């Protein structure tokens, strides 16, 4: 540390740009870096799933049902992580499941963030009934426990992967609306906004070009949290039989059908859950790192 410090004093450089200083803070957090590497690996697996997976996720090898992982007695080299109750290769299913889970997480974030930003900005810039209606509606969504709300929505519109995404998006919408509205209300009173208004900028331009970029930091942190929670809730819905439907290799749905093999073939249960845990943990590590790097109060404390 001291060597670094003297070097910094000896060669004063131009102050780093916001991105460079953000990245320096982020990469100093070793746990966050580990999370980022893990996440990168998972994204890679998800994108190239059809090249990496040895078999199709739904191909059934009828003569090879419930083969344990290769390193266990009775395992088969052809099926590294074993096969499930109807002879599908676990590794291939897990690899394709990564694609599904990350897709769900990303879709939920994009959808709830986009709708949340618009509604939040409208609530901040249109006081009176639009604001009241939006905020009351968000209160209602928040007062129903998250998973229960998702369950009800799915029970009504029917269980499927798309409907899972719709349901979880609705669940996370209020967090963005409240966050955007609160920071937009604060930013709205700043001088630079007045300056922009005097300069002739229209309300829409002020909303999206002037105010929004200054509200992004907490939104980004919330986005990281949403991805991991969305993956967990989608898996929970799948587990309850209300999410992705078989034979989809969604990790939660894989667990649902595996319950009865807890005793005879435990790997069918342990592997998908471990995949969920690792994915969510990686995203949360990155999220914690983002929060610490973006929150000036936490910086270097």
């Amino acid at each position: 540390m001291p060597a670094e410090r003297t070097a910094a004093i000896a060669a004063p450089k131009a102050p780093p740009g916001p991105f460079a200083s953000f990245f320096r803070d982020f990469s100093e957090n070793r746990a966050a870096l580990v999370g980022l590497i893990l996440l990168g690996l998972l994204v890679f697996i998800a994108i190239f799933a059809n090249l990496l997976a040895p078999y199709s996720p739904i191909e059934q090898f009828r003569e090879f049902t419930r083969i344990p992982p290769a390193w266990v007695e009775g395992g088969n080299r052809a099926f590294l992580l074993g096969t499930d109750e109807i002879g599908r290769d676990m590794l291939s299913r897990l690899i394709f499941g990564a694609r599904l889970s990350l897709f769900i997480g990303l879709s939920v974030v994009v959808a709830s963030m986009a709708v949340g930003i618009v509604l939040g900005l409208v609530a901040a810039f249109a006081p009176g009934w639009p604001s009241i209606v939006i905020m009351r509606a968000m209160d209602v969504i928040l007062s129903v426990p998250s998973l229960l709300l998702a369950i009800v929505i799915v029970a009504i519109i029917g269980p499927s992967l798309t409907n899972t995404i719709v349901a979880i998006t609705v669940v996370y919408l209020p967090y963005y609306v409240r966050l955007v509205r609160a920071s937009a209300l604060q930013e709205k009173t700043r001088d630079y906004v007045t300056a922009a208004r005097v300069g002739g900028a229209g309300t829409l331009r002020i909303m999206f070009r002037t105010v929004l970029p200054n509200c992004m930091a907490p939104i980004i942190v919330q986005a990281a949290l949403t991805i991991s929670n969305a993956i967990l809730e989608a898996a929970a819905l799948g587990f309850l039989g209300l999410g992705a439907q078989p034979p989809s290799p969604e990790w939660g749905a894989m667990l649902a059908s595996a319950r009865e093999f807890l005793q005879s073939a435990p790997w069918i249960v342990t592997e998908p859950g471990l995949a969920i845990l690792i994915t969510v943990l990686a995203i949360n590590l990155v999220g914690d790192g983002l929060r610490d790097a973006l929150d000036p109060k936490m910086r270097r404390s």
Partner: protein
Amino acid sequence: MISFIIRRVLLVIPTFVAIAFLTFVAIRLVPGDPVEARTGERGISPERLAYFRHELGLDQPVWKQFLDYLWQIAHGDFGTSISTQTPILTEFTTLFPATLELATCAMLFATILGIPAGVIAATRRGTFVDYTLMGAALTGFSMPIFWWGLLLILFFSVDLGLTPVSGRIDLLYYFEPVTGFMLIDSWLSGEEGAFASAVSHLILPTIVLGTIPLATIARMTRSAMLEILGEDYVRTARAKGLSPFRVVGIHALRNALIPVVTVIGLQVGALMAGAVLTEYIFSWPGIGSWLIESIQRRDYPVLQGGILLVSGIVILINIFVDLLYGVLNPRIRHAR
């Protein structure tokens, strides 16, 4: 303070009506004819259809149906279950103690372990202990609890044979419920082994439901403690020679607990959501299992009434936490 309470409680009514409205609309969006769903008949004759539509009030205009629904709710009538023909409120009040017992134990488990873990991590900041505790907390925070439950069953019930897999008590024991809480009832029954059986049934569900709150409380306590330990009055307390235990335990912890109490309060909704999964895994006869079964049986009145009741309870508990927060934190009280 009193006007604040009244205002806060009055604000609940529109929210509650809005939830009632949403569930009311939602049930009408369900595909399938409500009469067929309720009578369980297909290809029903037009006369019988008209009769049932009148009987169920479905021939009234929709706004009138909604007002009638609100009127019923205001009189404590949340409808009747299709599959059991029991009033929904009766089913709810029979099953709710089971969920409440589980949730209370989970919250106690989370608080009793979470606060000390957070304090220890904060006072040993940057050490191996801190990293281990916070690593464990983040893992718990990221845990798919339905899988965690299966793992615990695999290890403790299947491999070691230590704990039962499902239910609240061995079928061996039977006694009339007095309080609805199995721990208290089994104690009161005086039957030998009943209490031990109830405890052993409760252990795994408590751990599963308590894991995420435990992780959240530990993380929150640590960051609140870190903030407080840097305050001037803590330095003063140290400087005047108080023992480290007194400084941390009395001066710092009491102030750090304010945000922690809020977090505990905010967990109530998450706890109800977690209870659904936990009860499903352990066949715990509570509200969560009841709601999941109602979906599987397409018993939509139960789903409608159940969601309304659960939301109502969550809203009331949140108000209570708000008020408690005002009592704990004089700064908030005076600001209002």
